[in-house]
């Protein structure tokens, strides 16, 4: 065999190795975290850990409930704020806007997505927190401003780029003939969008929202800087909360001395990984199907 062909065979083999490496990475991360969180899972049942509100690491009590509720609530607020605005902007950009405006919006969204989360966090500290504080005063609910609501607002802003860009892409994949077919039947522009475009793009848009959710769910630094970090189940949006990623970021560095604490925190990382991966997987599988069509 010619040595050109030998080189080709060898390189093809090493390509397969590279693919194997890429695929094993997900498993490796998950497995590493799982092994490290086994000590705590042996002591307490997962069910108990997730539903207990007692967080006293020094006494060996690790109840994740307040953190899970905190994460869910802050993400929910972010979604409530972000989804309507983002979807309407995506529809506007896709269906009504001049193509030049669409290009400008694309670049803006790209830049928004590129801004590091510490900068969003800093902006939150300077702008959002005082704003929420004022709002609280106005509504007669005293608050420091470091609260669920502030975290939700920042997460809403941080999740928007991905929601807007993915749903814009999805809307643009709906063929122009589909719109023409509806308009030719005498529908108004909005009716055509509602009955044809949105129906066609429904799964893709849902994936965009799920991706935004996953992004907000796992966001760490910005939330950590403004959400208050008090391990208690919050009772109002002006209360501070303590989401899982913030818990991990705040305590992971110095927990090596207490093995069980270490294990508990890595369990929270595992939970984070599993939840976010599950959502991302659903969204990407859907998007792959949309792409194929």
């Amino acid at each position, binding site marked *: 065999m010619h040595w050109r062909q030998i080189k*080709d065979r060898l390189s093809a083999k090493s390509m397969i190795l590279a693919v194997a490496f890429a695929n094993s990475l997900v498993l490796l991360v998950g497995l590493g975290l799982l092994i490290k969180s086994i000590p705590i899972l042996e002591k307490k049942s997962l069910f108990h850990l997730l539903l207990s509100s007692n967080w006293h690491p020094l006494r060996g009590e690790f109840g994740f409930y307040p953190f899970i509720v905190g994460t869910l609530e802050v993400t929910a607020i972010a979604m409530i704020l972000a989804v309507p605005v983002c979807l309407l902007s995506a529809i506007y950009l896709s269906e009504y806007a001049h193509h030049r405006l669409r290009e400008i919006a694309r670049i803006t969204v790209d830049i928004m997505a590129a801004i590091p989360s510490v900068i969003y966090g800093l902006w939150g500290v300077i702008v959002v927190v005082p704003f929420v504080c004022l709002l609280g005063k106005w509504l007669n609910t005293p608050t420091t401003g470091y609260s669920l609501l502030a975290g939700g607002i920042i997460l809403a802003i941080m999740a928007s780029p991905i929601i807007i860009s993915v749903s814009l892409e999805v809307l643009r994949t709906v063929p122009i003939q589909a719109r023409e077919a509806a308009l030719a039947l005498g529908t108004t522009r909005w009716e055509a969008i509602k009955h044809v475009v949105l129906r066609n793009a429904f799964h893709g848009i849902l994936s965009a929202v799920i991706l935004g959710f996953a*992004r907000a769910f796992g966001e760490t630094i910005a939330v950590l800087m403004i959400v208050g970090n008090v391990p208690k189940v919050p009772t109002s949006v002006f209360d501070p909360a303590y989401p899982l990623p913030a818990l991990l970021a705040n305590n992971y560095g110095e927990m090596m001395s207490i093995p069980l604490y270490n294990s508990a925190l890595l369990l929270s990382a595992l939970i984070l990984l599993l939840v976010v991966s599950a959502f991302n997987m659903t969204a990407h599988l859907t998007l792959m199907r949309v792409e194929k069509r």
Partner: protein
Amino acid sequence: MWCRGPRLSTYQCSFKPRKAATTSEKRGGVANAIVGSLCLAFGASLLSFLLGLPIAFALQKEYISRRLAQITRLSLDILWGTPSIVYGAFGFIIMVYLGLRASLLGGIIALTLLMLPIMVRSIDEVIRMTPPELKEASYAMGATRIETTFKVVLRQALPGMITGVLLAFGRGIGDAASILFTTGYTDYIPRSLFDPVASLPLAVFFQVATPIPEVQQRAYASALILLIIVLLISVVSRLLSHRYSRHIIR
């Protein structure tokens, strides 16, 4: 943010070498963080490019079946979406396993985990845009797969690849959560891979939390520098991909 942004004094002391800044001292700059961040991001970009390029090439249909390619893309997408704090935690586990302290190398490992999927997926998207007929033209002349990949596909995908690499670089340089436990923080510029290293995102994060106004202002300065770097990367990637696209076949 701008109204409370950096003061002139912060600029003047921004570039004091060596003993640069602390989170407690009133005087000092952020040179340590700038250098540290650049070291981290360049190191991790290089590492993830070297690891990622073969993966991106391998996703072509000449090398693996379409089904396996889809699965790989899915797992890379999942990795892309994984919160960076998870990479921080996982990177820390690896560091403990390897017996490393918080160091430049630890940070590079954690950042590589974060940047690899971004780089591979964006390079992969560009490679997928290569017209199949272009590859056919190369095969029809008797080129092997690897020759076609390196002499034709690579050149065709180059401008897009630059964008992908810079995208990952931008993500890496701004990320705080993945390097929170893995790099440590220091007032000094690192001398080796095993020294702890300061970084801009962590400088912002730590400095804004202090009660001393002078230090807080350094946080704004760090944030501004970080923002400028990230925006610059975005502009440069647009310009470069335009500059190198003259050979591209559409």
